[in-house]
C-alpha cells in the first residue's frame, strides 16, 4: 500500500513538472542547425527580411476611407514601434479581451483607416506584423502586469497543460517535460515564441505563431483554434509570459 502511494505520488509529480526556469530557457534558435542559424543571423540571407521589406512599404502606404498610412499616425516605426511586439498580446479595453499583434493591426485598419482587415496569414498581414515586430529585435519579452490580463493568462496556462486530441497530449508534456529529446527526427524545442512571424523552411514562407500552434494541434489530432480566437490569443499570451525576458529574434528562421 505504501509503495502504491509513493508510486502514485511520483506519477503525479512527473505529470506536473515545473515550468522551465529562466536560466534553462532555450530559444528554438539553439535547437536549429548551424545552416538555419547562419541564415537567420545574416540579414541578406534571411528570407524573413523580404517580408520586413514589404512591411516597410505597407507602413507608408495610404489605405481605406481615411486615406491614411500607418506612418501618418505612428511616425517612424523605428522609434514608435520599438518594444511593442515584446509586450503583445495586450489588453484591449473596448473588446474586454487581449488582442494579438495581428489583431491589433487589423483593428487599426478597420477603426482608424476605414480599410478592410487583412486576411489572417495573408502575405500583407504577415509582412506588416514582421515589420512591426522587427523593431523589437533584441528586446526582452515583457508581458504587462495588468490585472485585466490575469484571467486570460490563467486560461492560457490551463490550455497549455490540458490534454487534448486523439493522442491525448498536452503542450506541456512535450515542451516542459521532454524538450531536448527527439520526436521522430526532430528535436523537441521548449516552445518559446521568440521569433514570430517566423520564416519556416518547411512552409517556404513567413507564418504566425498561431499557424505554428495549429500545426501542433493537428499533430496531436485535436481540433485547432481559429485564427484570432480568444483561446488562441490566451495561449499566445501564456507562451509569452512563459518566455518572459527572452530576446525577440524576429524574423527568425526555423526548419
Amino acid at each position: 500500500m505504501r509503495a502504491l502511494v509513493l508510486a502514485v505520488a511520483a506519477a503525479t509529480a512527473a505529470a506536473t513538472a515545473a515550468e522551465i526556469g529562466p536560466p534553462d530557457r532555450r530559444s528554438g534558435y539553439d535547437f536549429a542547425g548551424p545552416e538555419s542559424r547562419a541564415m537567420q543571423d545574416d540579414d541578406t540571407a534571411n528570407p524573413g527580411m523580404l517580408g520586413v521589406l514589404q512591411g516597410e512599404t505597407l507602413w507608408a502606404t495610404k489605405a481605406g476611407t481615411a486615406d491614411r498610412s500607418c506612418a501618418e499616425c505612428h511616425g517612424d516605426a523605428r522609434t514608435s514601434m520599438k518594444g511593442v511586439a515584446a509586450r503583445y498580446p495586450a489588453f484591449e479595453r473596448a473588446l474586454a479581451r487581449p488582442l494579438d499583434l495581428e489583431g491589433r493591426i487589423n483593428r487599426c485598419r478597420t477603426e482608424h483607416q476605414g480599410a478592410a482587415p487583412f486576411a489572417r496569414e495573408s502575405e500583407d498581414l504577415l509582412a506588416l506584423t514582421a515589420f512591426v515586430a522587427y523593431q523589437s529585435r533584441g528586446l526582452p519579452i515583457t508581458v504587462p502586469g495588468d490585472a485585466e490580463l490575469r484571467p486570460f493568462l490563467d486560461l492560457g496556462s490551463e490550455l497549455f497543460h490540458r490534454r487534448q486530441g486523439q493522442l491525448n497530449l498536452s503542450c506541456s508534456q512535450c515542451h516542459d517535460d521532454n524538450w531536448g529529446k527527439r520526436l521522430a527526427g526532430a528535436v523537441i524545442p521548449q516552445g518559446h515564441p521568440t521569433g514570430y512571424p517566423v520564416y519556416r523552411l518547411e512552409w517556404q514562407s513567413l507564418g504566425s505563431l498561431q499557424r505554428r500552434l495549429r500545426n501542433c494541434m493537428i499533430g496531436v489530432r485535436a481540433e485547432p483554434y481559429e485564427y484570432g480566437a480568444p483561446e488562441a490569443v490566451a495561449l499566445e499570451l501564456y507562451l509569452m509570459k512563459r518566455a518572459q525576458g527572452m530576446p525577440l529574434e524576429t524574423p527568425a528562421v526555423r526548419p
Partner: protein
Amino acid sequence: MARVLINVPAQAKRGEIIEIKTLIAHPMETGYRLGPTGAAIPRDIINRFTCSYNGEEVFRAEFFPAIAANPFIAFFTVATESGQIVFSWTDDHGETQTEIRQITVE
C-alpha cells in the same frame, strides 16, 4: 517588381575574392501541386539567373522546379575594377527583373 536583397561589398582591393549574395522573393511554384479544386497549379518559377560585372558575365544559373521559394544564391568573383554589377532573374513568363549595384575597387 519582386523584392530583392543583394549583398555586394561597396569597396574591395584589386584582385580580392569577394562574395556576392542575392535573395529574391518568388513563390517558385513547381507545377506539380494541386489547388483546392484539384486542378494543377501552373508552374511559375524563375528559370535563369545571370550576373555580369562591367558587361562580362561572371555567373549564370539555370533553375528547376526543385528550387525552394525565395531563391538565395551566393557565389564568388574577383574584384578586377570599379564599376557596375548587374543581376537579372528571368521567370517562366519571360519577364526579367534587373538590379544594379556599384563596386569601388582600389
